[in-house]
């Protein structure tokens, strides 16, 4: 079927560290395949950019120059599509950082300001609607119980009598079941603990969606649509760049912000200050203060996913 190829390294490297030239016969093989595929696709998609996109390697196997080419191609594509200068970066994870998040469920009022701030920041599709954050309304009577959770509550005012609110997004597990099941390694935990997705490598099989115990993953059931004027042009390859249809996406702790030192957008949007973020390895961070001083719990602890998203009772 294929040539014998020995270039498959056991461990993958970060693009920065990957100086290894791709094996020639592998490249040949893939090129041959590309020709076949291009022939099959026949109608009009045989331009160079599509062929390059088809041939693109896994993010962690791209050399520096290949990565540069990919980023430039994407920038060109998005800039044309949205009629503005779009930047696509690939900021590597910082050394000595492991991100953690804490959410005070005694303060959250369920106003969904975070949901829509996230949509804007992270270029989520407006139609069909994609929300990375789900805010659940729960009964005080039942406590934290997903059986009595409603994601579709509405009304004139929140918080409602007898209810409390429980936002859920990607829990950035240390032992992520989604990455375990991904057949092509398209999703994996990065050095700073953020579980990322290479949207150009994902085959759209949705195993990860079945494996995620937190309903955090979203599929692009059709081409996402983002109004040009609302599109956030400051993007990251593994983060908030526009996604193609047919791939999975989810919260990335706003890595386009947090890898530059900023707080995630939801933290800044929360009107009640219920959302906290920081470096778990920094003893002086607020996240460490919370872990050490508050009553913290994680969702579905029994699954040993080891989330880095903590819920707590601040009051």
């Amino acid at each position, binding site marked *: 079927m294929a040539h014998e190829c020995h270039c498959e390294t056991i461990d993958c490297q970060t693009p920065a560290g990957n100086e290894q030239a791709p094996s020639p016969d592998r490249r040949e093989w893939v090129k041959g395949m590309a020709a076949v595929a291009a022939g099959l696709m026949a109608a009009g998609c045989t331009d160079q950019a599509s062929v390059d996109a088809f041939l693109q390697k896994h993010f962690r196997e791209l050399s520096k120059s290949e990565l540069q080419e990919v980023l430039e191609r994407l920038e060109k594509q998005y800039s044309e599509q949205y009629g503005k200068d779009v930047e696509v970066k690939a900021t590597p994870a910082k050394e000595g*950082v492991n991100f953690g998040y804490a959410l005070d469920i005694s*303060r959250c*009022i*369920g*106003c*969904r*300001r975070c*949901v*829509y701030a996230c949509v804007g920041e992270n270029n989520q599709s407006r139609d*069909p*609607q994609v*929300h990375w954050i*789900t805010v659940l309304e729960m009964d005080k009577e039942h406590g934290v119980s997903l059986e009595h959770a409603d*994601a*579709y*509550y*509405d*009304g*004139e*005012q*929140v*918080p409602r009598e007898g209810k409390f609110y429980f936002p859920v997004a990607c829990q950035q597990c240390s032992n992520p079941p989604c990455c375990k099941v991904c057949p092509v390694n398209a999703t994996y935990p990065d050095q700073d603990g953020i579980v990322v997705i290479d949207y150009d490598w994902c085959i759209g099989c949705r195993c990860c969606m079945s494996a995620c115990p937190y309903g955090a993953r979203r599929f692009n*059931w*059709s081409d996402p649509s983002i109004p040009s004027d609302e599109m956030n042009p400051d993007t990251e390859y593994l983060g908030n760049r526009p996604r193609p249809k047919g791939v999975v996406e989810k919260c990335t702790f706003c890595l386009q912000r*947090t890898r530059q*030192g*900023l*707080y995630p957008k939801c*933290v*800044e949007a*929360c*009107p*009640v*200050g219920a959302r*906290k*973020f*920081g*470096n778990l390895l*920094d003893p002086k*961070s*607020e996240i460490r*203060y*919370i872990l050490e*001083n*508050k009553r913290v719990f994680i969702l579905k602890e029994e699954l040993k996913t080891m989330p880095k998203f903590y819920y707590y009772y*601040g*009051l």
Partner: protein
Amino acid sequence: MNASSKKLAVTLAAAVLLSLGVFRFWAFSAEEKEGPEKEASAAEEDGGKKTPAPDSKPPGAQPQSVMEDAEATPVAPPPFSPGIFPCSGCHEDLDPNPTVRTLKRKHTNIVLEHDEKNRWCYDCHTQGNMDKLHLASGKPVDFSESYKLCGQCHGPTLRDWKAGEHGKRTGSWSGAKQYLLCVNCHNPHSPKFQPLKPLPPPVRPKDLRP
């Protein structure tokens, strides 16, 4: 010696108030923040009945003081209504009136719902120097340091706020952060959060159509 016992008394007082459960902070809106505008404009030309801070000594008071540490906390500017500060602009020529009453001529938007049975304007605002607030000790504090005043009663909250747990921080998780003052979120005259209208619920999967 004297200063530290004073500190202790103040923190004890804070614990009493908290244990009474007088304050529950619920909702507040960044958008619908009419509160902060009225906030810092508390004093009218007349003063109020003086009520000393409660001074009983309950159990469970925190020994470590959260106040008066040397490092200045970087905070957002106090949310004054436009043109209202300095207060002395009007108050200089007015005689203080410490009587508890409903304000009819100025600051009519202020409704005191913050331990209102025991307090009046001059518990926080300073008779004779309306451009400053003051602590229970009488020590004047700027409006930009009003958290020190709040922390006299809400000690644990002030401690959590300093650690970044209470309230919202913006800026950089790894570098310069900006804190909001207590009054940026809580109307000091009526600190309880107001409910908000939630943003729209997500589209149900069955309504997600091509």
